[in-house]
């Protein structure tokens, strides 16, 4: 039986213990009913001393119901706003009660959970790291619309509230206390309710403790209102920095800042009303749907193992061998050791292997410096990594990850030589970014235990691992790779084998389209700026300089040797560009002394002038809209082809993989979700226009037409 348990003690203090029917307490219809009943009961009390809001669940209160929120649509914006206002009115009733109200925070109080705490007169939390406190809504395309922006702004001032709201920071109780989000912590759960009650008894005759600061006459907001002269610089620079950072693509963050600014100037009730109108606008905006869909539902689905064989039991990796201590290998060694896994980092010389291990040491030193880790723990992590040149050290590895050069012959050779060191049911993973797993597995004695484990650079920062199943890869091997990825705290997507898999293949189209634009005569700066304008982290030319044109050249060579050149489309144009730059002008990329750009000693860069001589044609007019769509549509179309041909097994893997692996703009919700928001019919029409104007690479994949005909979205 769900309930807000209501218990009055001999001191006249009522403890309301939230214990809703779902796994967590959440802001939904049931909450609305329970809170309504509770408030009525409290208001009917005659000798009430105070109220404690507590939770019977592990989490104090989980906040908004995203299943409900994701369905909010623009046509029913008035109903949505009304519902939100009703919920907020309940909170306001609790806030204005004539007795002290205390939040006894036993577990995470995030989003709506913390908004509930904010209406209380006092907040006391159990001082445990997992008791996270904060307002993370902005990460989901929303903002704290249940009074969170208004009250936190009024509580700690606009300058301090903004980063917490915009970055969605989750604080430990200790940090929340320091930041002024809560007023008290206790060191054990047993002390929580007594502490809450003690505060009420101490303050039962203190009128100040009953009235919220912002409800008092003459209330002055900490730091002053945003329109006071002392805040002029903040008022001008905060929106500017937000605009720069989000490139104007995150309407919810703009709205959050706007509401915070206004909250600092206006009375509570007016500010709450403004917050409600903006929240309704933001929640019904496609960006909210895209981000809730990607960063909540689909990410949960992916992390929940939707693409993992259910019948195979959990596979724990105990000892991992990493072959090749280069950039990728050393990063994989670090994240593995950080997860407590024993690591054998092998290269052809001990020196090379040690150099790879030194990378971990440097990262650990950084953590110590920042106070994120103590010396002992860092030493223990480093101690898990054995740098070696000896094959025998690989004995007993239940997982070996090969991270050597992208050369099929070399990879075959190494597989044959070292596969035998694996434990009987050990799994061999290849960290290739392009080469087909089925072909690589041909050298393996146990191809069923052979799988692709594609990491992204830099490994310690990039959250994704792309797992690739070859034709013969077993469910067991997949489960092993999947569980390992989760063990090292990465998000694994699972795809089927193909040249370039999903991420590299899709990302390649971004570079390829840039090459097309370049050769057509569009100014290279324009290409990179418009790549950023659509929300990609970096322009396509700049990123190819970083990943290296030389590497692209080698990849093309390898594909040619393997007979798979142009398997996914005509690569003539990019090969011409690579030839012009790398072969004819020695411009292999940033780490080869420069590529499309020249890199100067002072850290700046500028376009290599030869690039303009080669391609730039002032008379060429391609509209910004077309350039932006071309850079976006190529990637979207490729992702759709991957879905159509079964390379992608699920839409969720496609969206999450595109965002976390190749930087698909977060506001789109991923490259496949992009089509849903664009509208399937509109997308087909735009593809027709683009293919007519720019070529067959923009022909709309059939899968979109099929879905459009059946009226289905990509879910």
């Amino acid at each position, binding site marked *: 039986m769900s309930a807000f348990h209501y218990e009055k003690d001999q001191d006249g203090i009522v403890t309301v213990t939230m214990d809703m029917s779902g796994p967590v307490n959440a802001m939904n219809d049931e909450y609305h009913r329970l809170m309504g009943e509770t408030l009525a009961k409290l208001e009917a009390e005659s000798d009430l001393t105070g109220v404690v809001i507590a939770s019977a669940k592990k989490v104090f209160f989980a906040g908004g119901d995203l299943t409900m929120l994701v369905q909010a649509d623009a046509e029913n914006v008035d109903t949505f706003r009304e519902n939100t206002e009703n919920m907020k009115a309940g909170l306001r009733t609790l806030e204005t009660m004539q007795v002290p109200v205390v939040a006894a925070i036993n577990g995470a109080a995030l989003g709506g959970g913390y908004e509930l705490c904010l209406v209380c007169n006092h907040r006391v939390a159990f001082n445990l790291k997992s008791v996270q406190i904060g307002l993370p809504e902005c990460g989901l395309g929303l903002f704290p619309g249940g009074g969170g922006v208004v009250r936190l702004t009024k509580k700690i001032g606009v300058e301090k509230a903004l980063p917490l709201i915009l970055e969605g920071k989750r604080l430990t109780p200790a940090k929340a206390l320091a930041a002024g989000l809560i007023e008290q912590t206790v060191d054990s759960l047993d002390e929580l309710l007594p502490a809450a009650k003690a505060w009420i008894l101490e303050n039962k005759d203190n009128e100040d403790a009953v009235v919220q600061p912002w409800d008092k006459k003459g209330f002055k907001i900490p730091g002053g209102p945003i329109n006071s002269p002392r805040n002029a610089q903040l008022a001008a620079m905060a*929106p500017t920095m*937000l605009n720069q950072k989000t490139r104007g693509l995150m309407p919810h963050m703009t709205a959050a800042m706007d509401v915070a600014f206004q909250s600092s100037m206006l009375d509570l009730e007016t500010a709450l009303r403004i917050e409600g109108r903006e929240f309704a606008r933001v929640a019904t905006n496609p960006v909210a749907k895209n981000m809730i869909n990607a960063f909540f539902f689909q990410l949960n689905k992916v992390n929940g193992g939707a693409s993992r064989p259910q019948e195979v039991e959990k596979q724990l990796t105990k000892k991992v061998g990493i072959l090749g201590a280069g950039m990728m290998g050393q990063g994989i060694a670090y994240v593995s050791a950080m997860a407590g896994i024993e690591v054998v980092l092998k290269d052809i010389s001990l020196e090379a292997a040690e150099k790879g291990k030194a990378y971990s040491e440097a990262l650990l030193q950084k953590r110590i410096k920042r106070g994120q880790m103590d010396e002992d723990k860092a030493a223990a992590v480093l101690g898990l990594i054995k740098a070696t040149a000896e094959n025998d050290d690989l004995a007993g590895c239940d997982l070996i990850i090969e991270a050597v050069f992208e050369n099929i012959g070399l990879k075959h050779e190494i597989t044959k030589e070292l596969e035998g060191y694996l434990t009987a049911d050990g799994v061999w993973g290849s960290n290739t970014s392009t080469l087909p797993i089925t072909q690589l597995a041909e050298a393996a004695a146990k191809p069923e235990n052979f799988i692709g484990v594609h990491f992204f650079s830099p490994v310690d920062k990039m959250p994704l691992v792309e797992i690739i199943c070859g034709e013969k890869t077993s469910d067991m091997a997949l489960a092993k790779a999947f569980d390992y990825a989760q063990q090292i705290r990465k998000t694994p997507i699972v795809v089927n084998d193909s040249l370039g898999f999903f991420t590299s293949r899709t990302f390649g189209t971004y570079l390829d389209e840039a090459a097309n634009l370049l050769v057509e005569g569009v100014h290279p700066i324009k290409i990179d700026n418009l790549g950023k304008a659509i929300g990609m982290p970096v322009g396509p030319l700049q990123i190819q300089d970083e990943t290296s044109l030389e590497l692209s050249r080698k990849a093309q060579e390898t594909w040619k040797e393997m007979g798979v050149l142009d398997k996914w489309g005509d690569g003539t144009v990019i090969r011409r560009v690579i030839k012009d730059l790398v072969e004819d002008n020695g411009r292999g990329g940033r780490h080869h002394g420069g590529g499309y750009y020249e890199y100067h000693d002072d850290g700046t860069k500028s376009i290599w002038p030869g690039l303009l001589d080669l391609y730039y044609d002032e008379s060429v007019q391609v509209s910004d809209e077309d350039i932006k769509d071309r850079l976006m549509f190529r990637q979207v179309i490729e992702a759709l082809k991957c879905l159509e041909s079964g390379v992608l097994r699920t839409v969720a893997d496609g969206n999450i993989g595109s965002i976390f692996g190749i930087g698909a703009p977060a506001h789109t919700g991923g490259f496949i979700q992009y089509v849903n928001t664009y509208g399937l019919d509109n997308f087909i029409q735009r593809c027709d226009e683009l293919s007519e104007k720019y070529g067959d690479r923009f022909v709309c994949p059939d899968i979109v037409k099929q879905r459009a005909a059946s009226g289905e979205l990509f879910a």
Partner: protein
Amino acid sequence: MSNTAFIYDAIRTPRSKGKADGSLHEVKPVDLGAGLLRSLQERNDLDTSYVDDVIMGCVGPVGEQGADIAKSMVQNADWDESVAGVQLNRFCASGLEAVNTAAQKVASGWEQLVVAGGVESMSRVPMGSDGGAMGSDPAFMIKTGFVPQGIGADTIATLDGYSREDVDAFAMESQNRAAHARDNGYFDKSVVPVRDANNEVILERDDFIKPGTTMEVLGNLRASFEQMGQYGFDDIIIRKYNQLDRINHVHTPGNSSGIVDGASAVLIGSEQAGKDLGLKARGRVVAGAIVSSDPIIMLAGPGPAAKKCLKTAGMTEQDIDLWEINEAFASVALRYMRDLDIDHSVTNVNGGSIAMGHPLGATGGCLVSTMLDELERQDKQRAMLSLCVGGGMGISCIIERT
């Protein structure tokens, strides 16, 4: 047929540094303006009850400059109580907007005699005191991609390829021309000394001009907007001007308009007003124009405004003898000359705001007196006055001698 808007007189205060150590810092804006009105009255033996309206531009109309300072000035000057007053704000165009509006009032026949000009005590009411959505409203700023003017000026320089040397050379010439004009008495006809309540002179002539400014001195100044650009404004404007990979920050205090205190007043009336009061017209307002262009780069409006003004007047570039473009930033003047294909030798012949300063709301009125004096001195006929304006606007006005 509309009436002709005659210019019967045009005067201004000297300009001085708009900071605490400026000569006019001690003067209240309402006194600065009232002093000028009193001079206008004395010079023309004016029956003030004949004046229909006083229009004053003011860009910081708050605090001491708040509450319709034009009407306060009228009262403070002891003008007849029948005289109305209105303050207007079209950013840096305010003074010239006042002149154009006064001319329209007279031309329409609704009014016979109007005073137009502006007042700005930047030392007492600093720039930005009036707030506004542009620099403080996240929703507006992010929606429109706002960047400050200086970033726009640097972007114009980057787009047009004006180097630091180009803009400094222009600035040096402005200083030399202004010093030469002042020292040879070219400004004496219209610059009215500012006096205190005892009639003692507080400031007689412009004292912001820096004679003998060299390229070396200018070259040593630090770019004013570089740091601001790094905080995000450069990236924001590059989103719009996406053929640029960086903004070349060339503007410094040396090649941008000076922050000063000052006021201006122009007496504009009908033929009938001249007859009734026995005034001799010095010139007339031929036409005026207002335009708006890209609000982000903000400062590219003057060229298009001048072209529109020529069209309205039924004239061509050849009909204009002298050109005056407010030197908000050197790149603005360089862009203006490029847009209109005119030479520096006929543009800002006595220097401009880089040397003398730009008392925001008053500047437009100052330009009228500067040009009228110079047309008379050189015995020439016609001048075009233009200013760049916040929000991408541009304003122009053609005056000619009668």
